[in-house]
C-alpha cells in the first residue's frame, strides 16, 4: 500500500480504491463471503435472526482501552447480544476524511479484526467513501449486524415485580475515559474505557439457563437511561441501592471534580440484566467467569412502588428519583 495519508482517489472506485480494499480490508477481515466481492453478501441463517445498525463517531479516535474500530465492532455485536442473539455477520461502512493517516486506519482495521474474534462474527460486506478534508472529523464507521436468536423474549416489556437487577461491572468508565482524553482536561490517569464484546458472558448465562427478562448495554445515557427506559416500558418501578453500585475510584474522582454522576456516563462494555429472582446467584456465577464482569453486582429490584420511575435509595435512608440524563453533560460551575 503506497501513501501515508488517505487520498480522495482511494474512495473513487478505481484502481486506488481497489488497492485499499484488497490491501487493507480483505487482508484483515478475510472470509469467503466478503472476498467473493459480490454486490451483496449471500447469507443462510438457520433460525430467527436479529438485525441492528449503529454509526460510530468518537473524539479522540484512540482512547484509553480502545479506539473507534473496537467500538464499532463491540457496539454492534453487543446490540445483538443484548437481544440474546449470537452475532454472525456484520457490514462495515467507512467514511474517511481526506488526509487521514493510513497508519491510523490500519490500526483501526486491525483492532476491528481482533474484536471480531471474541464473538466469532464476520464482516461480510462493506463500503468505503473518502470525503474532502473538512467534511468529516477524521473517520466515521457504520456497522450493521445480523445475529441468530438463542433466547427469545428478552425485552424491557417483560420485566416482572421482584425481578433482580444486576449490573455486569463498574459503571461510567467509557464516558469518563473519553472525557479525560479530550482536549481541555489535563488529567493524568490510567483510566481505561470498558469497551468490550459481551457475547461470551451473555452466552454463558443463556447456556446455564438463567431466566433473563431484560438485558441492555448501558451506552450513551448510561445506567440512568437504561433503567428509566425499562421502568417506562414495563410500567413498573425499579429500586436501586446506591451502596451496591460498583464505581471505580477514577470515575468517582472525575465525577466529583466536574459535578457529574456515574449513572449518567456512557459505557461500552457494561450491561444491565433483569433476571427471575431465583436465578440471580446463577447469573452472578456465570458472569464471574469473565474478567470484564468480575465486579458484577446485584443493585436492586423491580417493584410496584412508583410506576414508571427509578428510585435511588441512599445508605442513610433517603431516596430520590434517578432521572434520565438531559442535554449535554456540562461541568458544574462551582
Amino acid at each position, binding site marked *: 500500500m503506497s501513501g501515508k495519508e488517505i487520498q480522495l482517489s482511494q474512495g473513487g472506485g478505481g484502481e486506488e480504491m481497489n488497492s485499499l480494499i484488497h490491501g487493507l480490508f480483505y487482508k484483515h477481515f478475510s472470509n469467503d463471503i466478503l472476498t467473493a466481492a459480490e454486490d451483496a453478501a449471500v447469507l443462510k441463517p438457520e433460525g430467527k435472526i436479529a438485525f441492528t445498525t449503529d454509526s460510530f463517531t468518537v473524539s479522540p479516535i484512540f482512547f484509553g482501552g480502545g479506539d473507534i474500530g473496537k467500538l464499532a465492532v463491540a457496539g454492534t455485536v453487543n446490540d445483538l447480544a443484548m437481544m440474546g442473539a449470537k452475532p454472525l455477520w456484520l457490514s462495515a461502512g467507512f467514511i474517511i476524511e481526506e488526509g487521514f493517516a493510513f497508519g491510523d486506519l490500519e490500526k483501526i482495521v486491525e483492532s476491528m479484526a481482533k474484536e471480531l474474534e471474541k464473538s466469532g462474527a464476520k464482516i461480510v460486506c462493506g463500503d468505503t467513501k473518502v470525503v474532502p478534508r473538512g467534511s468529516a472529523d477524521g473517520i466515521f464507521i457504520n456497522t450493521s449486524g445480523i445475529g441468530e436468536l438463542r433466547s427469545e423474549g428478552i425485552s424491557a416489556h417483560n420485566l416482572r415485580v421482584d425481578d433482580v437487577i444486576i449490573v455486569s461491572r463498574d459503571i461510567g468508565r467509557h464516558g469518563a475515559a473519553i472525557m479525560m482524553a479530550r482536549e481541555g482536561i489535563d488529567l493524568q490517569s490510567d483510566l481505561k474505557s470498558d469497551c468490550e464484546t459481551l457475547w461470551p458472558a451473555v452466552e454463558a448465562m443463556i447456556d446455564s439457563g438463567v431466566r433473563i427478562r431484560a438485558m441492555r448495554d448501558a451506552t450513551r445515557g448510561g445506567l440512568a437511561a437504561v433503567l428509566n427506559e425499562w421502568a417506562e416500558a414495563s410500567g413498573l418501578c425499579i429500586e436501586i441501592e446506591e451502596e451496591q453500585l460498583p464505581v471505580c475510584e477514577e470515575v468517582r474522582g472525575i465525577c466529583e471534580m466536574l459535578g457529574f454522576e456515574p449513572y449518567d456516563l456512557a459505557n461500552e462494555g457494561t450491561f444491565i440484566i433483569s433476571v427471575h429472582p431465583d436465578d440471580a446467584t446463577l447469573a452472578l456465577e456465570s458472569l464471574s467467569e469473565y474478567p470484564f464482569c468480575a465486579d458484577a453486582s446485584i443493585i436492586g429490584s423491580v417493584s410496584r412502588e412508583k410506576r414508571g420511575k427509578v428510585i435511588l435509595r441512599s445508605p442513610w435512608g*433517603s431516596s430520590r428519583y434517578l*432521572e434520565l440524563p438531559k442535554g449535554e453533560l456540562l461541568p458544574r460551575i462551582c
Partner: protein
Amino acid sequence: MKTLQLRDLYDRFRDPATIKGLAALIAEDAKRLREPLHIMEVCGGHTHTIMKYGLNQLLPENIEFVHGPGCPVCIMPKERIDNAVELANIDGVILCTLGDMIRVPGSGSSLANERAKGRDIRSLYSPLDLIEIAKSNPEKRVVYFAIGFETTTPMTAAVIKRAVKEGVKNLFFHINHVLVPPPMHILMADEEAKIDAFIGPAHVSVITGSKIYEPFPEKYSTPVVVSGFEPVDVMHSIAMIVKQKIEGRAEVEVQYSRSVSREGNVAAQRMIEETMEVRESFRWRGIGDIEKSALRLRDEYRDFDAEAVFADYLSHEPIDDHKLCICGTILKGLAKPYECRVFGKACTPNTPLGSCMVSSEGACNAYYRFGGVS
C-alpha cells in the same frame, strides 16, 4: 504509610452512621424550637446537595429549607444572555463561557442554538484555557462571558493579569461576576420573606473569608453558618444553626473550618480589587435590580472590556421572566417549586421559563430532578 486516596477526601463526609446520627441530634434539639425554623441555603451547590442526597427527608417538620439565589447561571437576566448571543454573532469572534451557560435561553436564542448555527462557542473547563485559545487564534477575537460569584472571580482576574503580562491583545471579558451578600440583604429587607438563618457557601468564603456574613447577625439577628458541600457538612451546619436558635444566639460560625478563615484568601481579594470594581447596580433574574451587587472591569482595563469594545453590538433593554413564573417568590421562601403552575409542565430543564429551572443548581431544577419520591 497509607497512600491518600481520593475517596478518603469525601467518604467520611458521606458516612451513613454520621449522617443518621446528626439527623437524630437535630430532631432531638428541634423539639426545643419555639417556632418553625426556615433556613436559607444561599448557594445552589447546597440546594443540589440537599436534594441529591435527600437531606430534606431527614429533617423534622419544623425545619424547612428556603432555596436561595446563589446560582450564577440562574440569576443571569435575559438581556445579559442576549449580550452573549450578540457577541457570539460578531464575525471573527470565539465566544467562551462556563458550563450550563451554553444552554440557557435568552429572549430569542441560546448559545447552544447559535453554536448549532455554526458560531464558534466553547464551553471551558478552566478560564486559564482562554490564553491558549487567544494565542492560537491570532486572527480572531476571543470573548469570555465571565460568570460566577466570588468563587470564580479570582480566576478571571488571574487571566486578565496574565493577558496583560503576556501581551495578549485579542482577548476580551464580558464581566457578569456577582456578589453574595447584596441579595441576602435584599431578601432580609423584604418583610414577606421567611428566613430565620442562613447556610453560607463555603467556597465563596474560602476567598472572601467569613467576615462578609458578620452584618447579618448584627443587623437582623440571623445566624449564618458557613458550610461545606458534603452531606455531613450540611447536616452538621443545620445542627449548629438549631443549637444557636435554642440557645438564643445569632452569630457567624464556620462549619467548614478546614478551609475558611475570617479574612479569607487575601492574595485573591487583592487580584480582584486590582482588576475589577463594584457596579452601581445589576439586575438579578427573579429578584430585580440590586445596588452594588456585581463587578465590572476597572477603567484601566478598558481595552479588554467587551462591554466597551463591542458596545455597538450590545442591547441593554431589561427583559422580564415569563408572567406565570414565581421564581422571585420561591427565592424569598414563600413558595416551593412544585407550587408554581408551570413547574414540570411548561417549565422544565429543557425549556426553562424562570431562573430557578435553568441550571442544575437552581431550586426548581433540583426539585424536578431529585424531588418527589416521598
